[in-house]
């Protein structure tokens, strides 16, 4: 057994945690943009957009993220794309996040009273103007708490990227365990680092939700 000081283990894990945060950020930004497009498709003109978005969300919420990851990892090369682990993980998590965010934000858009649509339409606004100036600003406020809550889920989901060989926090834990033979300590630390990243977000989401409830 190699004797590695606790401080060195912790440092290695914390450095890897940066990649977890980066991957979460990529997936969140990409997923957010994707969800916005889905939202426009959902409420926009061709009516089959509703069904299309529904199907997309069902597909991604009804299958394991791990297999979505594998499909991207083994599927992209068939299209002639050279996949690195971060690309595969980034693409898969972006698709995953877009489906969940689209579903969350749909609820928030639906919460805007029908009269707002009618009133803005009667002012001669087209769909994009309605969305931009009337509907989205109003849904934005109620969307914040559940979106922050989803961020926790997304951050935890990045752990699966370790399986396709992306060296984020969980993978770093595996590497350190293989070197030190101290799985109890290392996985305990890994769990605590995830907790330290997720719990503040959970706490924030809860606080924001309470604030919103009081404002109503």
């Amino acid at each position, binding site marked *: 057994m190699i004797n590695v000081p606790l401080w060195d283990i912790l440092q290695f894990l914390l450095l890897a945690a940066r990649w977890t945060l980066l991957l979460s950020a990529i997936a969140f930004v990409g997923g957010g943009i994707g969800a916005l497009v889905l939202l426009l498709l959902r409420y926009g003109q061709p009516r089959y957009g509703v069904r299309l978005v529904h199907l997309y969300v069902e597909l991604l919420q009804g*299958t394991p993220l791990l297999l979505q990851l594998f499909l991207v990892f083994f599927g992209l090369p068939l299209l002639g794309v050279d996949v690195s682990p971060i690309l595969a993980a980034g693409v898969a998590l972006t698709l995953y996040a877009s489906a969940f965010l689209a579903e969350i934000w749909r609820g928030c858009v639906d919460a805007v009273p029908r009269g707002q649509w009618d009133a803005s339409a009667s002012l001669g606004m087209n769909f994009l103007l309605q969305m931009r100036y009337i509907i989205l600003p109003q849904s934005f406020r109620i969307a914040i708490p559940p979106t922050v809550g989803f961020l926790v889920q997304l951050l935890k989901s990045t*752990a699966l990227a370790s*399986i396709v060989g992306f060296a984020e926090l969980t993978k770093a834990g595996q590497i350190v365990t293989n070197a030190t033979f101290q799985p*109890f300590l290392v996985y305990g630390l890994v769990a605590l680092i995830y907790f330290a990243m997720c719990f503040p977000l959970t706490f924030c989401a809860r606080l924001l939700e309470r604030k919103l409830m009081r404002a109503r």
Partner: protein
Amino acid sequence: MGYQFDFGALASYLTLFLKGAGVTLALTAIAATIGIALSIGGAATARWGLKWARALVAAYVELIRNTPFIVQLFFIFFGLPALGLKMTALQAAILAMTINLTAYAIEIVRAGIEAVPPGQREAGFALGLKPVSVFVYVILPQAIANVYPALVSQIIITMLESAVVSQIAVTDLTHVADFIQSRTYRAFETYFVITLAYLGMAVGLRWLMTRAGRRLFAGRLR
């Protein structure tokens, strides 16, 4: 595109595939049964328990809900043996899934209990029922009926997340996929079919449990 899809190569693995699906469903069923039972106790404790017991339940729920399932699984399977708690991969998978599901279900059941009007509890006491009877016969059925759809969703999420247990060599559906693709070199086709199988299982399970719920909670389901 020079790649020729070949789904036919998978046909000879049908038995293996069915076995894997069976393992995934069995794992889910066991975790769901034990997890829901434990979560009822946990939710009751969170609602009426002593102060230290409430704090313990709250700590457990927060700890599990803020860490990834795969880390919990690795901690149980690789970490706990260091303390002398040795177990097979299958046992570790069941334990991890149960612990995970319980934490989420406690929150759900607790919300269900809180949604039962206080008059129900008082009426139970007025009829001379013991506190335990009030909980089991008056509050609990209504509480579960209140949140039944959320519980169903959580069980399905647990089933989908259980794909990860293939990583500690439990021979579930995903592990079967890993095996087939290593034999046939048809990775994309294999994972595509298995993904659809998960989708089918999720849809089927939801349909079945929704129907069962209509029977169990006739008229109570919201």
